[in-house]
């Protein structure tokens, strides 16, 4: 009955891509939080969240982006969002996220926005 949430992580050049699948709510957000934290602690500050298979996000999931965005940017990186489905984008939009986060139509676009500099650390 419970709909799940999965994260897959991969490298795309010097960028880490986190593919989010399923439903990101207060039950599943701690896993997402742990995954982002692990990347940042490992010195990987150039992150792209591939949202193409993300079906839902609540404030618990949005809060993870908010918690870590400053840290990633302060280290010279960013957390960019890509390929958000319209039904999920409207939730980001309600809170004004498009003005605060770099949201790109595709993962490729988001990765390209980092330029070709080497991943620090």
């Amino acid at each position, binding site marked *: *009955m*419970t*709909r799940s949430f999965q994260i897959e992580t991969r490298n795309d050049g010097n960028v880490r891509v986190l593919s989010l699948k399923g*439903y990101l*709510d*207060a*039950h599943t957000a701690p896993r997402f939080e742990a995954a982002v934290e692990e990347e940042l602690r490992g010195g990987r500050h150039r992150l792209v969240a591939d949202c193409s298979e993300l079906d*839902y996000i*609540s*404030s*618990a999931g*949005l*809060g*993870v982006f*908010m*918690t870590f*965005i*400053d840290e990633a940017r302060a280290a010279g990186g960013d957390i960019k969002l890509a390929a958000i489905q*319209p*039904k999920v984008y*409207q*939730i980001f939009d*309600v*809170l*004004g*996220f498009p003005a*605060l986060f770099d949201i790109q139509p595709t993962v490729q676009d988001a990765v390209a926005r980092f330029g070709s500099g080497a991943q620090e650390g």
Partner: protein
Amino acid sequence: MASFERTFCLQVPSSTENLALIREFVSAIGEQAGFSENETIKLALAVDEACTNVIEHAYQNEASHEVTVRVTVDEEEVAFEVIDRGRGFDPTQEPALPVEELIRRRRSGGLGLRLIRAIMDDVQYRIVPGQMNELRMVKKRRPAGGVRPESGGSQ
């Protein structure tokens, strides 16, 4: 005024594991009441946020309690009541800080209520001391006599 009224009720243990079930319950009613897919997702989100508040604040993540979601549909509106018997926590008293400020403070606690307020037409909180706490959220169905405009216009 309303010539018909239907009430639906769901009671689940106070665990975030049940948020998916709560959203499915709300979505099914939203669809039946004629809301579009995008609107239905937002209604489910608002109720999810209210229930998350109850689970995390009123019950402090103890799964041994119950959360009740009661939905009343009439011709004009859909009312969602989230009822608990935990520690009274009035989310409407929380200051509505701008998202930029929430980021600066590295906290996301005010986000849920911002979403609820943006999605619903009316939000009220009621404490019956020693008995229950109730967050009541109302969404208008459509302009009187008219057809519901497609997609998410109400801000």
